């Protein structure tokens, strides 16, 4: 499969090899003193070093050539491809891979699915993998062939020939496939195509509803509905056209009747008059009589918005558990000329668009969640089923805030014992929008609470997650001086999660973060019985009664599935004696038996019993229960006190100075912002920070007002008789409302380009001078009712442009606020149905052009349908194509893939090593003469006997060698160690001894027998090489001296 070769990226450097003979010539003489073998050895090494360096300079590459093929199948999953064909594509790929992929060549196959985007379904793999279904999810609302091909390019491995098989109808509506295909052909990638046939059907779509831009009250106008009917000439479609006008909850059919559509655009008009100022949505829907004749039903509806400005609209939200509390205020507002829509907190708005008809939203003593029932002192065992809990979802709270911040709507909170922090609004986004914070920052003398939590909810789905979440909610809700403890069943029994040595319940303040960190590592076992844990908790409460400060409120929450064995009467009695209320929270409880145990516990101790059907309600329960322990936020005043006006403000303008007394309010903390205006405050407490009665500020593009006492239901009875009651509240609401001033002349236009809605605002003042709008902003409410902010940029004097993604077909509502004090501009933009439905034929021409491109160094691609004679109409056709011999995606008509690996670093490394060898061979003479004596000595040692002959022979050879060396050293003119003839070989001879014996000299008898010398050899070998060299040098000097003498 592979062939390997060496190649050079910069081959001209190889010319340097011509210098090799010069190297030889220069070196040959210089190395003459080394003897034949060493000289040639050194020359060879030098030549190798030179060659390797030249190879490195020439950028040597190791090349591997392979005839492996990788085929990537690109499958079009866009809406224009019917389901049956998408299924056939999967079958086709399985078949092609199974039939044609060559295992011996390690061919690879991969699958990319695409629509508007592309996903890799299977990366290139070299084994057969049958897709059972396509798992990747792509945006099917468009076809981006180029994007898919680009994705494929990034997937191809380097070591194989590359082919793409494109299965699509060719109707691209994003990107430029032909351009991408050309780039791929240049990169040597071949593209085969399989055009999928489109089944020609007629198609009807409601294109748009056109409304005039300046709809005015009581002036008739025409709404035009454009319906596009794509069908063969002469054919017509019949159906019902229904036009509906929606405002708020009211839906009114303004026209309904049969229509007949001709091929092409059909326009219908409806005459319409708006007699009430409001925000209107028109919807036109076409229902064909023959549904089968319409290829797609999704595009049979279109919507449009219009807005007619009139009196101020107010959305007044009251607590559904306490309806009618604010009727007096509502009446007053209406008397003052405001249009008020009263809603209860369990029938709230569903989306931001719904809020656009209102200029201000009032939350009147409304808690974030209602349904907990009233807390009656001394009563226990109140059962709360979580199904009954309802209120504001996180999304709705978010909408309220954005409606004020981004869209300029007013937001007013009227007080009461269920509002602000007392209503569970603390830490919510709403708190951020208000001029006051809902927690009391200044900790004065307030009662301290203690909360023990027993956790046994591991058996419910995601039990550990919920336990962690609620524990953290509770810890967060408690005040710094409150005590908290958490008991769980652990392998060693019931244990506190923190503060075990301090009794388990410790003040939250210094340990809050530590507690949360412990909760994060929480793991709860299956508790066999309640009793031991509750006993431990009772003991901890008892211990706390002697603590400083002792808790005034003692509370326990048990969350469980209810199957631990019930507690004993003694344990319950102990808790009751200490006035510990036990609230039980039954999660996924095992039927009545578990319920009764937990209900009993709550009943006996005066706690609440929650039946949790939906775990999402748990955090609310824990927040609320923990709030019972943390310091109360309601401040009751006895006697009642009249609020003090601290600021002259629009809200209190013209209102008498003598405000009636109020007997209570919800404590808050003023926000530390210069924008906050405190208009009224209570004389008690004297602390100005937490005695706010009325405060207001501007938040983003809108305004918000906090009124912390109620409007007469409980604390402000005297107010209802006050002559300025209506005026006061209406001025409060009016101040907060969306600005209506028409100080400028704005033109707003919209269009949709490339999946984006473009909003253009032209701003002129009354004198037709360009307006500078530094604070222009806005939002687009999408058809899915989510909203996206509009970021305007100034493109010319007085002209501002913003763009927002508008991928989804439908109507987008555009709200633009030119800036503070300016009226909000509202318009709509309609995004038509997907382009996927526009094309009714396969774009064979494009696909053939792509297939006709010749891959660099290889052949053109193929049109699979033409090659095999089958079109991809279904599963059978897919099998036929796969089995056909006429088409092989793994055919070898592409240039073999070449993989290069630069190896110059290796060359340099080798050259360095060989260079060392060159130095070594020139500088070091290796002598192996010691091998012979060593062998014979070993032999003697093994076999015994005095074998002198070999010794004599060895010595003779040594001497002859010595003479030879002397001659050599003389010839080279170099200084060598020389030994005197008389120097006896000693037992501690140096390694150079052999060099000192002149040739032909008679060897002296060794002074010690060889056997002994071997034995004593052990000692000298222990000496270092250096010391032996020194010794040799000394001997040589001595010899020279002797010789000189």
């Amino acid at each position, binding site marked *: 499969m592979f062939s390997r070769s060496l190649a050079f990226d910069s081959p001209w450097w190889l010319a340097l090899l011509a210098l090799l003979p010069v190297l030889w010539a220069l070196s040959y003489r210089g190395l003459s003193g080394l003897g034949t073998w060493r000289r040639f050895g050194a020359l060879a090494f030098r030549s190798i070093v030179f060659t390797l360096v030249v190879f490195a300079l020439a950028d040597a590459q190791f090349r591997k050539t392979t005839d492996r093929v990788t085929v990537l199948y690109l499958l079009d999953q866009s809406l224009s491809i019917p389901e049956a064909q998408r299924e056939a594509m999967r079958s086709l790929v399985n078949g092609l891979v199974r039939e044609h992929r060559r295992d011996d060549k390690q061919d690879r196959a991969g699958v990319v699915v695409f629509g508007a985007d592309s996903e890799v379904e299977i990366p290139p793999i070299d084994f057969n993998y049958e897709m059972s279904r396509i798992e990747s999810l792509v945006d099917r609302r468009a076809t981006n062939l180029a994007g898919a091909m680009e994705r494929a390019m990034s997937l191809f491995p380097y070591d194989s020939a590359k082919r793409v098989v494109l299965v699509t109808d060719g109707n691209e509506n994003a990107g430029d496939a032909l351009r991408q295909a050309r780039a791929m052909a240049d990169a040597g990638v071949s593209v085969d195509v399989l055009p999928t046939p489109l089944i020609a059907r007629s198609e009807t779509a409601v294109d748009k509803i056109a409304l005039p831009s300046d709809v005015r009250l009581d002036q008739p106008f025409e709404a035009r509905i454009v319906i596009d009917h794509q069908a063969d000439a002469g054919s017509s479609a019949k159906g019902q056209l229904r036009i509906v006008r929606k405002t708020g909850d009211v839906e009114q059919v303004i026209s309904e009747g049969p229509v007949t559509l001709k091929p092409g655009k059909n326009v219908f008009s409806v005459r319409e008059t708006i007699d009430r100022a409001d925000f209107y949505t028109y919807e036109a829907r076409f229902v064909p009589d023959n549904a089968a004749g319409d290829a797609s039903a999704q595009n049979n509806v279109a919507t449009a918005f219009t807005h007619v400005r009139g009196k101020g609209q107010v959305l007044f939200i009251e607590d559904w558990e306490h309806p009618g509390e604010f009727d007096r205020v509502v009446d007053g507002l209406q008397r003052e000329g405001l249009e008020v829509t009263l809603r209860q907190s369990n029938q709230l708005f569903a989306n931001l668009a719904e809020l656009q008809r209102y200029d201000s939203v009032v939350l009147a003593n409304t808690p974030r969640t209602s349904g907990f029932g009233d807390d009656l002192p001394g009563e226990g065992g109140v059962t709360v089923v979580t199904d009954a809990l309802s209120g504001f979802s996180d999304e709705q709270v978010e909408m309220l805030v954005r409606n004020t911040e981004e869209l300029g709507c007013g937001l007013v909170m009227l007080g009461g014992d269920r509002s602000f922090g007392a209503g569970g609004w603390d830490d919510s986004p709403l708190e951020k929008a208000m001029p006051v914070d809902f927690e009391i920052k200044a900790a004065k003398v307030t009662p301290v609470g203690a909360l023990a939590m027993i956790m046994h909810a591991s058996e419910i789905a995601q039990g550990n997650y919920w336990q962690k979440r609620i524990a953290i909610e509770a810890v967060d809700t408690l005040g710094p001086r409150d005590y908290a403890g958490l008991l769980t069943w652990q392998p060693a029994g019931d244990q506190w999660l923190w503060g075990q040595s301090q009794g388990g319940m410790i003040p939250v303040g210094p340990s809050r973060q530590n507690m949360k960190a412990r909760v994060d590592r929480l793991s709860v*076992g299956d508790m066999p019985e309640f009793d031991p844990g509750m006993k431990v908790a009772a003991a901890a409460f008892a211990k706390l009664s002697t603590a400083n400060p002792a808790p005034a409120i003692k509370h326990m929450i048990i969350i469980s599935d209810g*199957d631990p064995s019930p507690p004993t009467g003694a344990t319950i009695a102990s808790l009751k004696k200490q006035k510990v209320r036990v609230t039980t929270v039954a999660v996924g409880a095992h039927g009545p038996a578990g319920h009764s145990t937990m209900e009993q516990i709550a009943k006996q101790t005066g706690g609440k019993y929650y039946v949790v059907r939906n775990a999402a309600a748990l955090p609310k329960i824990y927040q609320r229960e923990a709030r019972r322990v943390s310091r109360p936020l309601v401040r009751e005043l006895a006697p009642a006190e009249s609020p003090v006006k601290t600021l002259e403000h629009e809200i209190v303008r013209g209102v008498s100075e003598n405000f009636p007394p109020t007997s209570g309010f919800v404590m808050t903390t003023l926000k530390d912002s210069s924008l906050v205006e405190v208009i009224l405050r209570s004389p008690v407490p004297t602390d100005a920070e937490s005695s706010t009665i009325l405060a207001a500020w501007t938040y983003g593009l809108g305004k918000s007002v906090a009124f912390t006492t109620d409007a007469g239901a409980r604390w402000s009875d005297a107010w209802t008789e006050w002559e300025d009651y209506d005026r006061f509240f209406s001025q409060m609401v009016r101040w907060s409302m969306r600005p209506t001033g028409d100080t400028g002349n704005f033109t707003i236009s919209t269009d949709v380009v490339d999946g984006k809605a473009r909003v253009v605002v032209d701003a002129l003042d009354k004198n037709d001078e360009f307006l500078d709008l530094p604070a222009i902003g806005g939002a687009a409410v999408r058809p899915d009712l989510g909203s996206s902010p509009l970021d305007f940029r100034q493109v010319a004097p007085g002209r501002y442009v913003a763009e927002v993604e508008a991928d989804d077909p439908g109507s987008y509502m555009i709200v633009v606020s030119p800036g503070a004090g300016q009226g909000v501009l509202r318009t709509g933009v309609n995004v038509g149905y997907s382009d996927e439905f526009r094309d009714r034929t396969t774009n064979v021409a494009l696909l053939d052009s792509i297939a006709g491109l010749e891959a660099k160094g290889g052949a053109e691609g193929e049109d699979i349908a033409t090659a095999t004679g089958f079109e991809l109409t279904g599963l059978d056709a897919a099998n036929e194509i796969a089995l056909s011999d006429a088409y092989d995606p793994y055919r070898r008509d592409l240039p073999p893939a070449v993989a290069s690996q630069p190896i110059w670093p290796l060359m340099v490394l080798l050259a360095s090593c060989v260079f060392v060898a060159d130095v070594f061979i020139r500088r070091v003479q290796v002598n192996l003469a010691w091998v012979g004596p060593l062998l014979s000595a070993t032999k003697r040692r093994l076999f015994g006997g005095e074998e002198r002959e070999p010794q004599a022979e060895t010595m003779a050879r040594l001497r002859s060698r010595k003479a030879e060396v002397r001659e050599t050293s003389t010839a080279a003119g170099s200084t060598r160690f020389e030994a005197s003839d008389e120097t006896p070989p000693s037992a501690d001879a140096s390694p150079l001894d052999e060099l000192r014996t002149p040739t032909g000299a008679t060897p002296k008898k060794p002074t010690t027998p060889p056997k002994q010398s071997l034995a004593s050899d052990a000692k000298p070998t222990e000496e270092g090489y250096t010391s032996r060299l020194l010794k040799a040098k000394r001997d040589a000097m001595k010899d020279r001296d002797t010789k000189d003498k």
Partner: protein
Amino acid sequence: MTDPASDAVHGRHLRGPVSGPIGRRAWLVGVGAAFAAGCLRDAPPVSEGASLARLDKVWGVHGIAGERMHKPRAMAIGPDDRLYLVDFTARILVYDTDGEFLQSWQTPDSKSGRPTGLTFDPVANELLVADTHYYRVLAYTPDGVLKEDRTVGGVNGKAPGEFGFVTDAVRDSAGCLYVSEYGDNDRVQKFSPQGEFLTQWGSHGTDELQFKRPQNLLVDPQDRVWVCDACNHRLKAFSPDGELLFSWGVEGSGPGELYYPYDMVMDPAGDLYVVEYGNHRVQKFTQAGESLGVWGEQGSGPGQLWSPWALVLDSLGRLHVLDTQNHRVQRVIV
């Protein structure tokens, strides 16, 4: 000691992917986890405990499909040494004593909770399932066919024939059925072989004649009914008519003490092996309550237990301990 545990684990994985509706990725993850578990089990046992028993084999892979188990909480053994387990997915899993998976089936309903008791009745050749949170006892053939006409209970209540949380059901030599339950009304009810209510004894509490979570029942060869009074940390024996014969057990973690005894078996010599949920061990007792040794300690290594719920004794006299929180079974030779 050789390490049969590792062989067992690896041997099981060589059999290939789990069949059934498990995705490719899940399988890969499972293999990875099992490999890790295998590696873990290659480590030498951390502790062999006291000399009561020695570890023979550890098996079981954590999971919720196929042969894998998730928090198995009850175990029974058939006459042919087939082990029946019920886990937290309410599947009854059948293995041989070497941990080879044989089959599994699901109980009819598990939304309210999963069964926590299993007993094999060799006389009727059926598996009795304490379907705790449905207040009933189900009977299955050894192959997992539900005998609907043999279901006992199903109604929550305190009247005869009604149940709270059913923990176990056993039959004596005469075929009478004893069912233990807890909740508000901890008791043992006795039914005739035909299913008629005969008698009952016990209530919720700590007195001698009361129970707190009677977790397990055992009928010995003399037809005495033994009860694990789990939350009172003691064992009791009754005559077939409910007369208390003896009761012993002290709460604690020392030898001879008990902390949440959840299951017991009797060996042919008449000694009892008790598994303690809270002490994470197995303890052997004489019938008089004298401790003969303990095995196991809390942990995840071989020879260690984590909240064990059940144990059985096979025909070769080996103990199989259901190591619930470790999602496995440990076989020990005593």
